[in-house]
């Protein structure tokens, strides 16, 4: 996949606004002012970043475990069943990330549920449907303050 080219405005936008989006009535106008462009240009730049999937969205990042509960789960799926099992896992509304990884544990996904009972029920459903044990590895501590992604490494 080729790296999409960013316009100078998009580059500056990503440098400045991965956090601290203004909580004002007109945040895009305020951002535009700080970047010395007009509001329509700024909204177009954001729309283009979203359409090209360079950003997944502009909005809040919620802290895990503050709303409901979650865990990182892994399955060791026989290779011939991986596609079907992965497709099933992705259909679950409790799954928000699902990655195939090159390991004996070859399917990794994040489960988010309203409470522990709900989480246990989802895990039980996965185990019954797949016939495989779920390895559940809930976060115990976090050692990173997420301030966004450093774009200067790209240059």
């Amino acid at each position, binding site marked *: 996949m080729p790296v999409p080219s960013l316009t100078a405005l998009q580059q500056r936008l990503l440098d400045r606004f991965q*956090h*601290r989006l203004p909580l004002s*009535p007109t945040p895009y106008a305020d951002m535009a002012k700080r970047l010395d462009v007009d509001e329509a240009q700024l909204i177009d730049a954001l729309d283009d970043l979203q359409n090209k999937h360079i950003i997944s969205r502009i909005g809040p*990042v919620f802290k895990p475990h503050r709303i409901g509960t979650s865990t*990182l789960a892994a399955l060791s799926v026989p290779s011939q069943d991986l596609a079907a099992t992965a497709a099933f896992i992705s259909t679950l509304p409790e799954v928000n990330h699902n990655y195939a990884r090159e390991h004996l544990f070859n399917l990794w996904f994040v489960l988010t549920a309203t409470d522990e009972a709900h989480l246990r029920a989802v895990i039980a459903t996965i185990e019954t449907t797949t016939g495989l044990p779920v390895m559940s590895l809930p976060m115990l501590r976090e050692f990173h303050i*997420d301030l966004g992604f450093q774009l200067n490494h790209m240059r």
Partner: protein
Amino acid sequence: MLDPIDRALIHATQAGLPLTVRPYHTLAVQLGINADEVIQRLQNMLDNGIIRRIGAIPNHYALGYQANGMTVWDVDDDLIDELGLCCGVLDFVSHCYQRPRHCPEWPYNLFVMVHGKNRNEVEQKTAQIAALLGVHCRQHQILYSNRILKKTGLRLT
């Protein structure tokens, strides 16, 4: 704690803010409250840590960081706070978590997500982490993702 309006606001914003001239007003109309209240509730969730940040959320893959290595480490439990913080401050690390071991098949207790443009870059960065952890790490592995099958923001279910 969160009340039903907060929950509705989380639902309405987890896929992103509207790209309208007054996005908080747009949300306010959807939720049947006024825009000042939307802003105040978002500010409160920022202040109490429910929202970590509000901004543009880049997609690492689309930015050319296509090698995503989940590095996992078996480190001394007694030192995990110090060791975790050492890794968490590295600028190429996007997530750093302590998780339980699941012995015997899973002896790793520290998860460090490393992003690079290719696997060679991820391996160099992983070597830097290994050097930092030194003798306090018994073993480690890099798990590369070969496919993203689903990725959405947090969802309330």
